[in-house]
Protein backbone atom coordinates (compact mmCIF):
# COMPACT_ATOMS: atom_id res chain seq x y z
CA UNK A 1 0.00 0.00 0.00
CA UNK A 2 1.24 3.48 -0.83
CA UNK A 3 2.23 5.46 2.25
CA UNK A 4 0.91 8.98 2.32
CA UNK A 5 -1.05 11.69 4.05
CA UNK A 6 -4.71 12.45 3.42
CA UNK A 7 -5.36 16.04 2.39
CA UNK A 8 -8.89 17.44 2.70
CA UNK A 9 -9.63 20.68 0.89
CA UNK A 10 -12.85 22.10 2.27
CA UNK A 11 -14.71 24.62 0.16
CA UNK A 12 -16.03 27.95 1.37
CA UNK A 13 -19.58 26.79 0.55
CA UNK A 14 -19.29 23.70 2.72
CA UNK A 15 -17.81 25.74 5.59
CA UNK A 16 -20.62 28.28 5.30
CA UNK A 17 -23.18 25.52 5.97
CA UNK A 18 -21.51 24.54 9.26
CA UNK A 19 -21.93 26.16 12.66
CA UNK A 20 -18.79 27.29 14.49
CA UNK A 21 -18.72 24.21 16.71
CA UNK A 22 -19.29 21.89 13.76
CA UNK A 23 -16.36 23.50 11.95
CA UNK A 24 -14.07 23.17 14.96
CA UNK A 25 -15.12 19.56 15.58
CA UNK A 26 -14.62 18.69 11.90
CA UNK A 27 -11.12 20.20 11.93
CA UNK A 28 -10.08 18.51 15.16
CA UNK A 29 -11.48 15.10 14.17
CA UNK A 30 -9.62 15.24 10.84
CA UNK A 31 -6.38 16.45 12.35
CA UNK A 32 -6.48 13.94 15.22
CA UNK A 33 -6.87 11.22 12.57
CA UNK A 34 -3.58 12.43 11.05
CA UNK A 35 -5.08 14.30 8.10
CA UNK A 36 -4.20 17.74 6.77
CA UNK A 37 -7.12 20.14 6.35
CA UNK A 38 -7.08 23.07 3.95
CA UNK A 39 -9.91 25.56 4.41
CA UNK A 40 -10.76 27.72 1.41
CA UNK A 41 -11.86 30.40 3.85
CA UNK A 42 -10.34 30.45 7.32
CA UNK A 43 -11.90 30.73 10.73
CA UNK A 44 -13.22 33.87 12.33
CA UNK A 45 -11.23 35.21 15.31
CA UNK A 46 -13.89 33.86 17.68
CA UNK A 47 -13.65 30.42 16.06
CA UNK A 48 -9.84 30.54 16.23
CA UNK A 49 -10.08 31.31 19.93
CA UNK A 50 -12.42 28.34 20.50
CA UNK A 51 -10.22 26.10 18.36
CA UNK A 52 -7.19 26.87 20.56
CA UNK A 53 -9.22 26.08 23.68
CA UNK A 54 -10.63 22.82 22.31
CA UNK A 55 -7.23 21.76 20.99
CA UNK A 56 -5.80 22.16 24.48
CA UNK A 57 -8.53 19.88 25.86
CA UNK A 58 -7.64 17.12 23.37
CA UNK A 59 -3.89 17.05 24.04
CA UNK A 60 -2.69 13.89 25.77
CA UNK A 61 0.74 12.48 26.71
CA UNK A 62 2.22 10.32 23.91
CA UNK A 63 -0.94 10.98 21.87
CA UNK A 64 -2.24 14.12 20.22
CA UNK A 65 0.15 17.03 20.85
CA UNK A 66 -1.81 19.82 19.21
CA UNK A 67 -2.15 21.49 15.85
CA UNK A 68 0.02 23.40 13.45
CA UNK A 69 -2.00 26.03 11.62
CA UNK A 70 -0.96 28.51 8.98
CA UNK A 71 -2.81 31.32 7.31
CA UNK A 72 -1.96 34.66 5.77
CA UNK A 73 -2.04 37.86 7.81
CA UNK A 74 -5.32 39.75 7.39
CA UNK A 75 -5.41 42.23 4.56
CA UNK A 76 -5.26 45.87 5.66
CA UNK A 77 -8.81 47.07 6.14
CA UNK A 78 -10.03 50.33 4.74
CA UNK A 79 -13.38 51.30 6.12
CA UNK A 80 -14.46 54.84 6.67
CA UNK A 81 -15.62 56.53 9.84
CA UNK A 82 -19.08 54.92 9.72
CA UNK A 83 -17.62 51.46 9.19
CA UNK A 84 -15.31 51.96 12.18
CA UNK A 85 -18.14 53.34 14.34
CA UNK A 86 -20.31 50.31 13.64
CA UNK A 87 -17.47 47.83 13.87
CA UNK A 88 -17.54 46.80 10.22
CA UNK A 89 -14.13 48.21 9.51
CA UNK A 90 -12.47 46.05 12.16
CA UNK A 91 -13.68 42.69 11.00
CA UNK A 92 -10.65 40.84 9.69
CA UNK A 93 -11.21 38.70 6.63
CA UNK A 94 -10.27 35.07 7.06
CA UNK A 95 -8.12 33.58 4.31
CA UNK A 96 -6.91 30.24 3.00
CA UNK A 97 -5.80 28.18 5.99
CA UNK A 98 -3.93 24.91 6.39
CA UNK A 99 -4.22 22.91 9.62
CA UNK A 100 -2.51 19.65 10.55
CA UNK A 101 -1.16 17.64 13.45
CA UNK A 102 1.73 19.48 15.14
CA UNK A 103 3.99 16.44 14.80
CA UNK A 104 3.38 16.11 11.04
CA UNK A 105 3.03 19.62 9.63
CA UNK A 106 5.96 22.02 9.83
CA UNK A 107 6.18 25.52 8.47
CA UNK A 108 9.26 26.07 6.31
CA UNK A 109 8.78 29.63 5.21
CA UNK A 110 6.10 32.20 5.73
CA UNK A 111 5.67 35.64 4.26
CA UNK A 112 2.74 37.97 3.72
CA UNK A 113 1.91 36.23 0.42
CA UNK A 114 3.58 32.82 0.62
CA UNK A 115 3.30 29.84 2.94
CA UNK A 116 5.69 26.97 2.41
CA UNK A 117 5.05 23.90 4.57
CA UNK A 118 6.39 20.40 4.92
CA UNK A 119 4.19 17.38 5.70
CA UNK A 120 5.37 14.02 6.97
CA UNK A 121 3.47 10.76 7.26
CA UNK A 122 3.13 9.31 10.76
Amino acid at each position, binding site marked *: MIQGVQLDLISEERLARLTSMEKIRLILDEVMAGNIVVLEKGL*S*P*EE*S*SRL*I*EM*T*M*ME*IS*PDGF*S*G*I*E*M*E*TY*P*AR*AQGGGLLARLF*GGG*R*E*SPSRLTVIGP*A*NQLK*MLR*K*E*RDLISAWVSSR
Partner: protein
Amino acid sequence: MDILTKAKKRLSRFLRVFFKKKRARIGIYGPPNAGKTTLANRIVRDWTGDALGPVSEIPHETRRARRREDVTISNGNGDSIVIDIVDTPGVTTKIDYHEFTEYGIEKEEAVKRAREATEGVAEAMHWLREDIDGVIYMLDATLDPFQQVNIMMVGIIESRTLPVVIVANKIDLPDASPARIKSAFPQHPVISISGLEGTNVDELYDKMIEFFG
Protein backbone atom coordinates in the same frame (compact mmCIF):
# COMPACT_ATOMS: atom_id res chain seq x y z
CA MET B 1 -0.85 64.95 22.84
CA ASP B 2 -3.39 66.61 20.53
CA ILE B 3 -6.60 68.34 21.59
CA LEU B 4 -8.78 65.43 20.43
CA THR B 5 -6.82 62.90 22.52
CA LYS B 6 -6.96 65.17 25.59
CA ALA B 7 -10.73 65.62 25.15
CA LYS B 8 -11.17 61.85 24.73
CA LYS B 9 -9.23 61.17 27.93
CA ARG B 10 -11.22 63.75 29.89
CA LEU B 11 -14.50 62.28 28.63
CA SER B 12 -13.27 58.77 29.45
CA ARG B 13 -12.36 59.83 33.02
CA PHE B 14 -15.71 61.59 33.45
CA LEU B 15 -17.64 58.54 32.24
CA ARG B 16 -15.59 56.23 34.45
CA VAL B 17 -16.31 58.32 37.56
CA PHE B 18 -19.94 58.90 36.56
CA PHE B 19 -20.71 55.24 35.93
CA LYS B 20 -18.27 53.98 38.61
CA LYS B 21 -16.58 51.81 36.01
CA LYS B 22 -14.28 49.10 37.34
CA ARG B 23 -10.52 49.42 36.88
CA ALA B 24 -9.31 48.32 33.48
CA ARG B 25 -7.83 44.83 33.48
CA ILE B 26 -4.78 44.79 31.24
CA GLY B 27 -3.70 41.34 30.11
CA ILE B 28 -0.11 40.61 29.14
CA TYR B 29 -0.40 38.11 26.29
CA GLY B 30 2.03 36.49 23.89
CA PRO B 31 3.68 33.20 22.98
CA PRO B 32 5.68 31.22 25.58
CA ASN B 33 9.05 32.70 26.58
CA ALA B 34 8.33 36.18 25.20
CA GLY B 35 9.06 37.71 28.62
CA LYS B 36 5.51 38.29 29.87
CA THR B 37 6.19 37.49 33.52
CA THR B 38 9.46 39.47 33.46
CA LEU B 39 7.50 42.53 32.29
CA ALA B 40 4.61 41.89 34.72
CA ASN B 41 7.12 41.68 37.58
CA ARG B 42 8.83 44.88 36.42
CA ILE B 43 5.55 46.81 36.22
CA VAL B 44 4.37 45.56 39.60
CA ARG B 45 7.78 46.12 41.20
CA ASP B 46 8.17 49.63 39.71
CA TRP B 47 4.75 50.77 40.93
CA THR B 48 4.03 48.71 44.05
CA GLY B 49 7.44 47.35 45.12
CA ASP B 50 6.14 43.77 44.86
CA ALA B 51 6.45 40.92 42.30
CA LEU B 52 3.92 38.72 40.50
CA GLY B 53 5.48 35.36 39.67
CA PRO B 54 8.64 33.33 39.01
CA VAL B 55 10.45 33.47 35.66
CA SER B 56 12.37 30.70 33.92
CA GLU B 57 13.95 29.82 30.59
CA ILE B 58 11.73 26.70 30.54
CA PRO B 59 8.59 27.41 28.46
CA HIS B 60 5.19 27.51 30.19
CA GLU B 61 6.64 28.50 33.57
CA THR B 62 3.44 30.54 34.02
CA ARG B 63 0.60 28.02 33.87
CA ARG B 64 -2.09 30.03 35.67
CA ALA B 65 -3.21 33.61 35.03
CA ARG B 66 -2.09 35.88 37.87
CA ARG B 67 -3.67 39.22 38.64
CA ARG B 68 -2.33 42.17 40.61
CA GLU B 69 -4.97 44.74 41.49
CA ASP B 70 -4.70 48.50 41.85
CA VAL B 71 -1.45 49.25 40.08
CA THR B 72 -1.12 53.03 39.62
CA ILE B 73 1.13 54.11 36.76
CA SER B 74 1.97 57.80 36.34
CA ASN B 75 4.24 60.00 34.29
CA GLY B 76 5.99 63.34 34.64
CA ASN B 77 3.06 65.23 33.09
CA GLY B 78 0.77 64.35 35.98
CA ASP B 79 -1.19 61.76 33.96
CA SER B 80 -1.91 58.42 35.60
CA ILE B 81 -3.99 55.26 35.34
CA VAL B 82 -5.05 52.66 37.86
CA ILE B 83 -5.18 49.17 36.38
CA ASP B 84 -5.19 45.50 37.25
CA ILE B 85 -2.28 43.68 35.61
CA VAL B 86 -3.01 40.11 34.48
CA ASP B 87 0.00 37.95 33.62
CA THR B 88 -1.21 35.10 31.41
CA PRO B 89 0.25 31.73 30.35
CA GLY B 90 1.91 31.74 26.92
CA VAL B 91 -0.54 30.97 24.14
CA THR B 92 0.26 28.18 21.70
CA THR B 93 -1.58 25.59 19.60
CA LYS B 94 0.65 22.67 20.63
CA ILE B 95 2.16 21.32 23.83
CA ASP B 96 4.28 18.20 24.07
CA TYR B 97 5.66 17.06 27.42
CA HIS B 98 8.97 16.27 25.69
CA GLU B 99 9.52 20.06 25.61
CA PHE B 100 10.04 19.81 29.36
CA THR B 101 12.09 16.60 29.46
CA GLU B 102 14.60 18.36 27.19
CA TYR B 103 15.30 20.64 30.16
CA GLY B 104 16.08 17.63 32.39
CA ILE B 105 12.64 17.41 34.00
CA GLU B 106 11.51 13.85 34.87
CA LYS B 107 8.73 12.37 32.69
CA GLU B 108 6.07 12.33 35.43
CA GLU B 109 6.67 15.99 36.28
CA ALA B 110 6.88 16.89 32.56
CA VAL B 111 3.49 15.26 31.87
CA LYS B 112 2.02 17.15 34.84
CA ARG B 113 3.48 20.44 33.58
CA ALA B 114 2.16 19.78 30.07
CA ARG B 115 -1.34 19.13 31.44
CA GLU B 116 -1.22 22.31 33.54
CA ALA B 117 0.10 24.24 30.52
CA THR B 118 -2.84 23.10 28.34
CA GLU B 119 -5.25 24.22 31.07
CA GLY B 120 -3.35 27.51 31.34
CA VAL B 121 -3.66 28.26 27.61
CA ALA B 122 -7.41 27.55 27.72
CA GLU B 123 -7.68 29.79 30.80
CA ALA B 124 -5.79 32.62 29.04
CA MET B 125 -8.20 32.42 26.09
CA HIS B 126 -11.15 32.50 28.45
CA TRP B 127 -9.80 35.62 30.22
CA LEU B 128 -9.40 37.32 26.85
CA ARG B 129 -13.02 36.61 25.91
CA GLU B 130 -14.55 37.53 29.25
CA ASP B 131 -12.41 39.64 31.54
CA ILE B 132 -9.77 41.71 29.75
CA ASP B 133 -10.18 45.40 28.83
CA GLY B 134 -6.83 46.02 27.13
CA VAL B 135 -3.82 44.00 25.99
CA ILE B 136 -0.05 44.28 26.04
CA TYR B 137 1.03 41.79 23.37
CA MET B 138 4.60 40.66 24.02
CA LEU B 139 6.89 39.42 21.29
CA ASP B 140 10.45 38.20 21.44
CA ALA B 141 12.16 40.59 19.00
CA THR B 142 14.73 37.94 18.05
CA LEU B 143 12.02 35.68 16.57
CA ASP B 144 9.83 35.80 13.46
CA PRO B 145 6.72 37.85 14.32
CA PHE B 146 4.73 36.18 11.51
CA GLN B 147 4.27 33.03 13.61
CA GLN B 148 0.70 31.84 13.28
CA VAL B 149 -0.11 32.17 16.96
CA ASN B 150 0.73 35.91 16.81
CA ILE B 151 -1.43 36.49 13.76
CA MET B 152 -4.31 34.60 15.33
CA MET B 153 -4.02 36.34 18.68
CA VAL B 154 -3.77 39.84 17.24
CA GLY B 155 -6.81 38.99 15.06
CA ILE B 156 -8.75 37.82 18.12
CA ILE B 157 -7.79 40.97 20.08
CA GLU B 158 -8.77 43.22 17.14
CA SER B 159 -12.11 41.43 16.73
CA ARG B 160 -12.91 42.23 20.35
CA THR B 161 -11.95 45.89 19.70
CA LEU B 162 -9.62 45.86 22.70
CA PRO B 163 -6.88 48.50 22.81
CA VAL B 164 -3.53 46.81 22.24
CA VAL B 165 0.08 47.88 22.63
CA ILE B 166 2.62 45.54 21.04
CA VAL B 167 5.90 45.17 22.88
CA ALA B 168 9.06 44.13 21.04
CA ASN B 169 10.97 42.61 23.95
CA LYS B 170 14.58 41.43 24.38
CA ILE B 171 16.15 44.35 22.47
CA ASP B 172 19.25 43.78 24.62
CA LEU B 173 19.98 40.68 22.48
CA PRO B 174 22.12 41.09 19.33
CA ASP B 175 19.62 39.34 17.00
CA ALA B 176 16.70 41.56 18.05
CA SER B 177 14.82 43.23 15.20
CA PRO B 178 11.97 45.43 16.45
CA ALA B 179 11.63 46.80 12.89
CA ARG B 180 10.42 43.37 11.74
CA ILE B 181 7.66 43.50 14.37
CA LYS B 182 6.69 47.03 13.34
CA SER B 183 6.38 45.91 9.72
CA ALA B 184 4.32 42.86 10.73
CA PHE B 185 1.77 44.88 12.75
CA PRO B 186 1.77 48.40 11.27
CA GLN B 187 -1.78 49.00 12.51
CA HIS B 188 -0.71 49.00 16.18
CA PRO B 189 1.79 50.95 18.31
CA VAL B 190 4.98 48.97 18.88
CA ILE B 191 7.28 49.80 21.81
CA SER B 192 10.77 48.28 21.90
CA ILE B 193 12.01 47.33 25.36
CA SER B 194 14.28 45.08 27.33
CA GLY B 195 12.06 43.83 30.16
CA LEU B 196 15.10 42.22 31.75
CA GLU B 197 17.24 45.37 31.82
CA GLY B 198 14.42 47.89 32.00
CA THR B 199 15.46 49.67 28.79
CA ASN B 200 12.76 51.97 27.40
CA VAL B 201 10.13 50.81 29.89
CA ASP B 202 9.21 54.46 30.61
CA GLU B 203 8.06 54.83 27.00
CA LEU B 204 5.83 51.79 27.50
CA TYR B 205 4.34 53.37 30.66
CA ASP B 206 3.59 56.56 28.71
CA LYS B 207 1.90 54.54 25.99
CA MET B 208 -0.11 52.55 28.57
CA ILE B 209 -1.38 55.79 30.12
CA GLU B 210 -2.32 57.10 26.68
CA PHE B 211 -3.97 53.88 25.48
CA PHE B 212 -5.56 52.35 28.55
CA GLY B 213 -6.43 55.54 30.43
